[in-house]
């Protein structure tokens, strides 16, 4: 993100309005990292690809065995390194390949979501969804939604560290 190199980037809300104006000129595109569970969401994403469904190219995918594997630490570290948004997707409740991984994940992520809102981070940087292996179109819709939401929020200045 050459835009952010060398700047003092902990959020300064007066500055971020100015930066918004800069963004529009610089053609900034949101960068989204998606942690997808291997059995359902990753397969759903793959189905979207095979069916030639178009969705925005802003997403990079990381495959994990189960959504319960995701430590909130991964999400926070992604935000620190510079990703603009994070998406975590797992199997629907009751369908987890490891029986109950997604239930624990649901609890973990609600803690993270509530705490992020509590300290004042804008909602929409961290997203969670359930996508099953047969839901190619649903996956594409979710990606479109998340990309638009992130585009409105602007580049991630909150946790990005000084480089």
């Amino acid at each position, binding site marked *: 993100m050459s835009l952010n190199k060398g700047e003092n980037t*902990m*959020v300064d*809300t007066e500055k971020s309005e100015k930066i918004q104006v800069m963004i529009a000129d610089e053609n900034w595109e949101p960068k989204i990292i998606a942690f997808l569970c291997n059995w359902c969401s990753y397969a759903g994403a793959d189905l979207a690809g095979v069916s030639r469904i178009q969705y925005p190219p802003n997403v990079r995918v990381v495959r994990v065995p189960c959504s319960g594997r995701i430590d*909130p*630490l991964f999400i*926070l*570290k992604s935000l*620190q390194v510079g990703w603009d948004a994070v*998406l975590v997707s797992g199997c629907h*409740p*009751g369908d987890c390949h490891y029986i*109950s991984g997604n*239930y*624990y994940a*649901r*609890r*973990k*992520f*609600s*803690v*993270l*979501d*509530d*705490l*992020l*809102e*509590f*300290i*004042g*981070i*804008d909602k929409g940087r961290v*997203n*969670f*969804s*359930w996508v099953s292996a047969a*839901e190619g*179109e*649903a996956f594409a*819709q*979710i990606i479109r*939604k*998340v990309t638009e939401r992130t585009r409105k929020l602007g580049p991630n200045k909150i*946790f*990005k*560290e*000084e480089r």
Partner: protein
Amino acid sequence: MKIMEEIRKSLKEIVKSLISEKKVEYVLGFEEGTLPLKSVPFYIEKEEDIDRLIWNEYCNLNLVKFLLEEPHGKKIGIILKTCEIRSLIVLINEKQINREDIIIIGVPCSYGIIDFNKVSKLLGGKEFSEFTKHGNDYIFKGVDFEKTIKLQDILSDSCVYCKDKKPIEYDYLVKAPNEFKNIKEEDFDEYLDVIEFEKKTPKERWAYFKKELEKCTLCMACRNACPLCYCKTCFIDQNQPQWFDKTDDLSEKMLFHMTRAIHLAGRCTGCEACTRACPEGIDIHLLYKKLRKMTKDRWNVDKIGLGEPSVMGSYKMDDPQEFMVKED
């Protein structure tokens, strides 16, 4: 305060019976520190030591931390207040301590514990050489000043809003001479300070946390004072992979405290030993109090009893999931 003296007398009798009958190897309590308004953890092993035991508003550490280093099978007595008994219960549930090894002496809390950092702030950082009590007013004397401060202004925040005064699990209970009330006169919601904070805008909340955390030097006193932080290798010290490199960025400090809060979700009992241990006087207690309010609002459980399942280690089929992104 006369009530404190009576509690201290009953405590001394209980400790004496435990030590003389050799039921325990030692009893953990507090003794007077080398500076005014400071107390020191005290391992009582012999009967001659019992007179040095104290019990008052500046016994500010969570003694449960010191139990973690002891091997299983060693019988230990410990003097605890309600919030600390709850953290001991969490440790017993997580199988770090055996219930049979510990003899809990439950003490009812009076108005609460004084936060030394708050005193320092109100005195402008100046040193005081002595203090006297006058009812609920404290008079601090220093080199060239004398100041009277109300107890309510220097109590730990968790104590100001506490409604949980009676010990819930104990082997011996010191009876309070009369019912201990909270320092606030009127009735209030236990999470009032969190509710007040949530009324602010996101910008104000972020500005508050940013201002507090800029002072942090990542000394880890908060983590080391917490009895529930007992990982042999904390995530911040991990080398492979190295998540955080402990440089002075605000993002590092923010993420350390956020991640520690997430790791304590459902476990933190609000004893506030972390806030009182901080050498920079950072007020971080709101983040941890929010955890308890959140578990209560979402899953209807904010205080865990002995033998009950942990909050993050269990689930219900119909947990709320309103934050999910759904397709249109």
